[in-house]
């Protein structure tokens, strides 16, 4: 996977691209961990460039979300397309997290 980070308002935006599968999902958790280490507790994960996610990807998201919750922080998502959107819906993640169309929408309030 590839990641770039930037900042919009009080949110760190993590743009991810590639596949979040059993082989690569740990990279997402690591990228979130690095943001937390840098003091960021409000994260927007922009998944526009992610075209595939499996339960391993969900696992790394849930694990990161729980850590952020422990720091009174939050992770939100934007840019879900195709099967990534389907997987979020089926797993209940679409109801558990706040989802937005764009990073700019997600970083408001």
């Amino acid at each position, binding site marked *: 996977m590839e990641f770039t980070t930037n900042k919009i308002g009080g949110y760190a935006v993590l743009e991810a691209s590639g596949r979040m*599968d*059993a*082989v690569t999902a740990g990279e997402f958790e690591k990228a979130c961990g690095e943001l937390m280490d840098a003091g960021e507790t409000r994260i927007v994960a922009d998944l526009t460039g992610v*075209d*595939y996610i*499996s*339960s*391993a990807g*969900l*696992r790394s998201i*849930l*694990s990161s*979300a*729980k850590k952020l*919750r422990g720091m009174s922080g939050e992770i939100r998502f934007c840019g879900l397309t*195709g*099967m990534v959107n*389907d*997987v979020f819906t*089926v*797993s*209940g993640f679409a*109801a*558990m997290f706040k989802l937005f169309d764009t990073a700019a929408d997600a970083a408001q309030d």
Partner: protein
Amino acid sequence: MADALRLEALLDNLEALLDFVAARAKALDVPPELAGRVRLVLEELLVNVCNYAYAGSGARGGAEPDSPGLVEVRCLRRVGGQATNLFCVRIRDWGSPFDPLTREAPDTGAGLDERPVGGLGILLAVEMADHLDYCREPDANVLTACFIMNPTANHP
């Protein structure tokens, strides 16, 4: 190209198994829009086999007594009910009898604090395959996942 691939049931072989199925799907004219779902279902089922099929028992099916057990994927096209064209993938392992489809489904309505990490793989496989079934052969576990390609031309 052979229609089946048999490798040691290791996560290191996951990519090779998934890429094999993707190549077979293409060769069998499976619509490209199904590729993501096919890969997802196969990943979930294969990860399950790699993690559990040979856990706690002597590996069987391996070339040597101490080697990991084997897993096989086989791809075929079938005509299903109501004359639908199906793309099916059969996963076989020679581990202890285990039907992953009988496990209790996780609560997808639970909140962040209540949710255990993990346990979603089989749920995704069940939801994303059009048909998924398990059967036990005398010495093997067999999971068959099928995907509806399109209605046949004769039965629109």
